[in-house]
């Protein structure tokens, strides 16, 4: 029998998280700081709208781009929150989570050999999606001393004549880093000068704790070269509904829609009806959850400092990214020992790229009681490591 598998797919490494997941799943009584999704349930009025749409028998396909009413609400939302205008009929596409939008944007824009600039540490799907689209990934290693922001110089240094796309994932998973307006203006200048396009993954935009989130699409000259990606998972605690969207210039969205049309048909209809309710009446829920995350953020950072773990202040998402370099263990060793000795699951920084070595991703999408218990164990573990070092 012939080998049925694609070389391209075989070349893709399984997610670094996967390996850790297997160890964790064998430990029945472990607690966790390793989850990349909200601990809140979707607000009831949103869930109720989903249920209602089922009761009404809205169980059929929507148009490929998604319900027009939802696209209109998204346009309103982007207008009021990040001050960018889109045409709901031609410039917005509803996708199965932000992840699908990332995949579509890369596939619609890449020719073989085109280089994609990917700042690391970053979410796990940019690299494989880039490979599957025949792009060549070029990593930009972000630095803790810059609070894991992308600087214009770092961008400039990574650009070659083949560079085409910059992936811009802020607020960032796993670091919690954010880009301020000034930071974005600095790189926008380089992007325009070098004629790059941007895939701006803003899925954590509502979880920003230092001023308002700024979208690079709102800067002069950037709307026409940006695919803005966002979704409902983080802001409205709707991860399981699998709903996101892309907004951008019509001629790019048309090609993305073509792939989406054949691969997916349309995003889940129930989720789309629920999302309309989220955008219409969900602002208070978003604010309530953001306040709760912010309190936990303060709590976690203070506790990390109390136990002597160095961590820059993250102003976005729901992650802290403390440095464990001083213990002389790799991130993987630290996380594995911590899991075995204290039964707390935590994700090593290296799961998000090689430059995550020396760091841990610590999620604070947990109740204060859970955080208190897990951080107490971390403190005990850190003290033990310090004693071993003496």
């Amino acid at each position, binding site marked *: 029998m012939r080998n049925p598998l694609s070389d391209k797919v075989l070349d893709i490494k399984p997610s670094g998280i996967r390996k850790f997941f297997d160890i964790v799943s064998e430990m029945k009584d472990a607690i966790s700081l390793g989850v990349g999704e909200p601990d809140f349930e979707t607000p009831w009025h949103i869930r109720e709208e989903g249920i209602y749409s089922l009761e009404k028998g809205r169980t059929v396909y929507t148009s490929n781009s998604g319900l027009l009413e939802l696209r209109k609400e998204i346009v309103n939302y982007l207008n009021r929150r990040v001050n960018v205008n889109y045409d709901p009929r031609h410039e917005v596409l509803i996708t199965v989570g932000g992840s699908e939008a990332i995949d579509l944007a890369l596939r619609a824009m890449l020719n073989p050999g085109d280089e994609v600039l990917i700042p690391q540490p970053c979410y796990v799907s940019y690299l494989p999606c880039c490979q599957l689209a025949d792009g060549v990934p070029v990593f930009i290693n972000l630095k803790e001393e810059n609070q894991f922001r992308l600087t214009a110089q770092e961008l400039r240094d990574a650009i070659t004549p083949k560079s085409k796309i910059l992936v811009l994932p802020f607020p960032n998973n796993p670091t919690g880093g954010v880009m301020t307006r000034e930071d974005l203006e600095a790189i926008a200048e380089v992007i325009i000068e070098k004629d790059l396009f941007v895939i701006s993954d803003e899925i954590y935009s509502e979880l920003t704790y230092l001023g308002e989130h700024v979208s690079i699409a709102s800067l002069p000259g950037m709307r026409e070269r940006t695919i803005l990606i966002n979704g409902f998972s983080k802001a409205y605690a709707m991860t399981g509904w699998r709903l996101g969207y892309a907004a951008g210039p019509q001629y790019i969205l048309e090609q993305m829609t073509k792939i989406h049309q054949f691969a997916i048909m349309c995003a889940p209809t129930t989720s789309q009806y629920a999302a309309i309710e989220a955008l219409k009446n969900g602002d208070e829920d978003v604010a309530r959850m953001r306040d709760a995350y912010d309190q936990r953020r303060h709590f976690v950072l*203070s506790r990390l400092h109390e136990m002597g773990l160095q961590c820059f202040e993250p102003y976005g998402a729901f992650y802290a990214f403390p440095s464990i370099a001083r213990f002389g263990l790799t991130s993987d060793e630290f996380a594995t020992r911590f899991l075995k000795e204290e039964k707390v699951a935590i994700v090593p920084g290296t799961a998000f790229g090689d430059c995550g070595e020396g760091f841990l991703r610590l999620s604070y999408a947990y109740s204060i009681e859970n955080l*208190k218990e897990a951080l107490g164990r971390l403190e005990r573990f850190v003290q033990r490591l310090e004693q071993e070092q003496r």
Partner: protein
Amino acid sequence: MREKILSVMEKNSRIDLHDLALMLGTDEVTVANEIADMEKEHIICGYHTLINWDNTSDEKVIALIEVKVTPQRGMGFDKLAERIYKFSEVEAVYLMSGAFDFTVIIEEKTMRAVAQFVSDKLAPMEAVMSTATHFVLKKYKDHGTVLVGESNDERMLITP
């Protein structure tokens, strides 16, 4: 700061002061002083425990009584309410808009005791025109907390 303290303490009055200070990005002394001030100003009026009595062997009967009154000169709603809320069996008294004037919530050991309170104490009051007593059969949610069933963290332990 006060609003933040209250929103946390409304859900968990037993929270550790140190933890609360960390959550709000301040120090324990500041938080303790704010709480003390709010106690003095009767913004914080007490620290109670939310108990689901259904899960104990204690028998309790809770009744919600709609009361219509005719306020008289020198005896407005506030005075009338006071005469009602001073009874120790009365848990809560609210002045209402609409078809009746007061909601009175009382807690007793038996239905007979509730009946006795209504017929002996409440109904005979001069200003009270009528009462309608409703017994609580089951509490599903109280003070923002769902009392039935439990919710587990359904998330996987590790996700990207």
